[in-house]
């Protein structure tokens, strides 16, 4: 079965929070006739946008989990993943980008390139996702799409080029001029569904000509044919321009920019045309997998539907009918009733129900071909798992997953809540690799870990609403770490003789600091001072000690352990004895190696009206923040700082009250840095107190 995949587009819609991407998706679904009425985010009709399927998302007006949907536009099948805009949910964005072939970068015509756009753009670069841009909200006062284009160039380094110019801006937004076809496009009907082409208004004709010139100039870099046509002054066809632009877009060398206002129903359809003309089909993107049978050799997957199946699970959702597994097929055809293997667990599963998703409604299908995105029912797996045909052992390259930086203790109110909480935590941990949960054996508390305060807040809320688990939360705790700063020797003997078989083991060597790995164990013993069979036990003993530092019981990182001497006893030595000796040795040397505490430092970006710049800087400074710089952008100002996570709790409330609610901020993990001595002492005191109260 050879199928023309030229007409498939797997795209994502990525942007800064509140730049209107959910509204845009809603319009796309409406114009492609997937939905028959438009509901706005935070809409007065109480229905909410179709893509924001979770109750909580509707209430907060933000997109949390990316819902997948597909639609058809002019003979093309377009799979859309709506992605969250808040940094705390970046893992969702990363996962979506992993399975996408192209993306629409949505920007606000007033706000322009904001901090989150920069993060999303970085992620797109990491996964080499070609993109087009859509400048939304041209109806807002202060809208200036050309300023946004210059920001795309200056701030993100995109070779951004306008595909259109607006006909009217702010209150007067009427339509756009298509610079390729050189015609004006208007959007008639109650919901802008009737696209009408007309002559370009005379007052903007000159501007349109000049901008078209710029567009053709930029495109000519990617096509000899077009360059020749320009030089010979012969006719330039639209096909020629699109072919050149498409080539540049696929190489990520050019970013075509569309514009309009999704809310006012302007400019969405031409952008959809742009998706079909300029973004790649699945076979134009090279996807790689790792062959587990051939020493993890990289294998290029082909989009052939006849080849063995390779498919990646990129999202799990708990629906009313059980677990829904979102999957992208990279190779082969996934058919109902066929058998596939989960490469991670080695378990074989039979494909039951196969569906294609449309937000929270679904449509049954018989098969999913290479390049398609769909969902499976009733399959036990985790996010990021690879499914293949039984005859191959390929796994998709694992996704980059950042480590959690914040934790929170949660306590269920009663038994019923306890059961519901366990169920919810199990589900969340499977859905989101940046969300972790475990039980603290000392306090008996259930701890959840994540990427930020809001990240954990949302999960606690979901637990309450979706699972009915009534839980109370403790204070958020920062994931501190310990490390050593200088070399220290050890020579420790573990000896126990209390009747029966004794325990004996001696280890000697040194600890030293290290920056680019968490733990390295090196055996420099010659002549069998410690018999080879006990070396692994020594390593295990040291590793166990790393889990909880002797100083303040935070995890220890950045330590190299070298053993160079030791002693054993023919009868009394054992694995247990050497493990205990290693633990003792670690403890002995650790405090002499000048241990210090490291804390997570967040990159905080605040966007505020210029008049509040001073007070925002003051707020950041009070929080031990180091301000990297400030960027003046007309009336707004962007302040970039590095602030310890421990100081950021409740910052959003304080920022709101200091700026009359006009400033907003984003935050993401940047690095670990040593805490100042005074703070270190404070932390030590707190730890001691906690220990006391736990006892």
């Amino acid at each position: 079965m050879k199928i023309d995949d030229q007409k498939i587009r797997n795209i994502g819609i990525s942007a800064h929070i509140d730049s209107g991407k959910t509204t845009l998706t809603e319009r796309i679904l409406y114009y492609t006739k997937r939905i028959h009425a438009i509901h706005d985010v935070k809409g007065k009709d109480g229905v909410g946008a179709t893509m924001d399927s979770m109750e909580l998302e509707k209430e907060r007006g933000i997109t949390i989990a990316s819902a997948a949907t597909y639609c058809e536009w002019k003979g093309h099948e377009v799979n859309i993943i709506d992605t969250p805009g808040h940094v705390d949910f970046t893992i969702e964005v990363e996962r979506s980008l992993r399975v996408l072939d192209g993306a629409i970068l949505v920007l606000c015509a007033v706000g322009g390139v904001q901090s989150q756009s920069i993060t999303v753009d970085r992620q797109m670069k990491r996964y080499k996702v070609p993109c087009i841009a859509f400048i939304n909200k041209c109806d807002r006062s202060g809208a200036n799409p050309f300023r946004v284009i210059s920001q795309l160039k200056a701030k993100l380094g995109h070779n951004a080029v306008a595909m259109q110019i607006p006909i009217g801006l702010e209150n007067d937004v009427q339509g756009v001029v298509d610079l390729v076809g050189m015609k004006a496009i208007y959007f008639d009907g109650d919901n802008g569904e009737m696209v009408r082409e007309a002559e370009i208004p005379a007052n903007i004709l000159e501007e349109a000509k000049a901008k078209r010139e710029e567009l053709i100039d930029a495109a000519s870099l990617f096509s000899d044919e077009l360059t020749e046509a320009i030089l010979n002054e012969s006719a330039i066809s639209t096909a020629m321009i699109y072919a050149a632009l498409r080539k540049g877009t696929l190489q990520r060398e050019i970013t075509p920019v569309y514009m309009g206002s999704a809310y006012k129903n302007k400019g969405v359809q031409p952008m959809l045309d742009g998706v079909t003309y300029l973004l790649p089909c699945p076979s134009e993107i090279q996807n790689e997998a790792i062959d587990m049978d051939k020493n993890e050799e990289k294998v290029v997957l082909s989009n052939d539907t006849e080849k063995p199946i390779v498919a990646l699970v990129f999202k799990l959702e708990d629906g009313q009918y059980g677990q829904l597994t979102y999957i992208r097929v990279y190779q082969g055809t996934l058919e109902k009733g066929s058998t596939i293997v989960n490469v991670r667990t080695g378990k074989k599963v039979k494909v039951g129900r196969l569906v294609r998703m449309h937000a929270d409604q679904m449509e049954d299908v018989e098969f999913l071909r290479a390049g398609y995105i769909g969902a499976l029912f009733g399959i036990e797996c985790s996010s990021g798992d690879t499914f293949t045909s039984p005859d191959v052992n390929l796994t998709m390259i694992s996704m980059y997953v950042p480590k959690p930086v914040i934790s929170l203790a949660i306590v269920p109110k009663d038994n019923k809540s306890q059961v519901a909480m366990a169920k919810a935590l199990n589900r969340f941990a499977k859905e989101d690799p940046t969300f972790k949960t475990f039980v603290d054996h000392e306090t008996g508390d259930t701890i959840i870990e994540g990427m930020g305060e809001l990240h954990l807040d949302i999960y606690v809320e979901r637990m309450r609403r979706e699972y009915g688990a009534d839980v109370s939360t403790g204070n958020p705790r920062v994931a501190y770490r310990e490390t050593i700063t200088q070399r220290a020797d050890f020579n420790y003997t573990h000896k126990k003789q209390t009747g029966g078989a004794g325990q004996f083991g001696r280890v000697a060597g040194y600890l030293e600091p290290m920056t680019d790995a968490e733990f390295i164990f090196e055996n420099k013993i010659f002549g069998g001072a410690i018999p080879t069979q006990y070396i692994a036990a020594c390593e295990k003993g040291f590793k166990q000690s790393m889990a909880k530092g002797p100083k303040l019981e935070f995890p220890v990182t950045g330590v190299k352990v070298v053993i160079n001497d030791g002693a054993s006893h023919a009868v009394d030595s054992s694995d247990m004895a050497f493990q205990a000796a290693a633990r003792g040795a670690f403890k002995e040397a650790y405090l002499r190696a000048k241990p210090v505490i490291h804390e997570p430092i967040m990159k905080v970006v605040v966007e505020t009206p210029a008049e509040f710049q001073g007070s925002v800087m003051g707020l950041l400074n009070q929080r031990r923040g180091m301000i990297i710089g400030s960027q003046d952008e007309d009336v707004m100002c962007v302040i970039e700082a590095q602030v310890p996570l421990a100081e950021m709790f409740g910052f959003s409330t304080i920022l709101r009250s200091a700026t009359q609610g006009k400033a907003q901020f984003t935050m993401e993990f940047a690095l670990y840095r040593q805490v100042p001595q005074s703070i270190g002492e404070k932390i030590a005191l707190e730890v001691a107190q906690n220990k006391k109260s736990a006892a």
Partner: protein
Amino acid sequence: MFPIGVALKREKNVIHLTYKDIMMIKKEMLYRNPLINLGYANEDILPAGGFGAVLAYAGVGKTALLVQLALNMMLREHSVLHVSLHDAVSKVDLWYQEIFHDIAEKFGIPEVQEYWDKIQPYRFIMTFKVEGFSAPKLEERMTDLMEQNIFKPIMVIIDGYKFDEAGRGQLVQLKELAKKYSMGLWFTVHTHRHETPQENGLPLSFLHVADLFDAIVQLATKGDEVYIKSLKGGSADRSPKDLLLDPATMLIKDNQ
């Protein structure tokens, strides 16, 4: 001078941050500082309230040279305000990190991040749009910082100032600002190939304000190499005519 790359040898991956290292990097940077070698009076080059300019064609390394000067100040625990009129904060930050890492690497300092964390608080980046920049606006922003004791600069870099478009008036205002807060101000001056320099080596578009400047240096390329020479303020008897620079670090090359 220490030949490059013979700093204390260390085992791979091991931190041994010593006082000696910091002293060495300071010493090296001072020793290889092109401006000191051109005969400018002291380490700060500019007097309080003074103006300095780096002239060059596009892409030769004006910003890099000033970043190197700024790093020199930061290592001596002097605060530097970097005002960019064309780049984003993150890009300016990257300039500093790259040049600092290059310098540290050349001198064989293995643990650069640790140093970087130490000196970074001595730098503050501000960016403005060219058309939105003015002396009163800069003063307003600086007052925000100084009043709250967040940052008080000793040296200010203004990168991307349009000398051919701005009149003398604004520079005079900036000079007053420099005097008021006892700061030295460094500017980048973008010169053009089509502009023939005057007898003193200065471009015509700069002449109307040249008298406000205490130090003027020029960067030029010959093939792949970058040279620096003093046009104003350097001591002619102490200095060679021009000096060859390492384009990565903007410090004097080893083989001179």
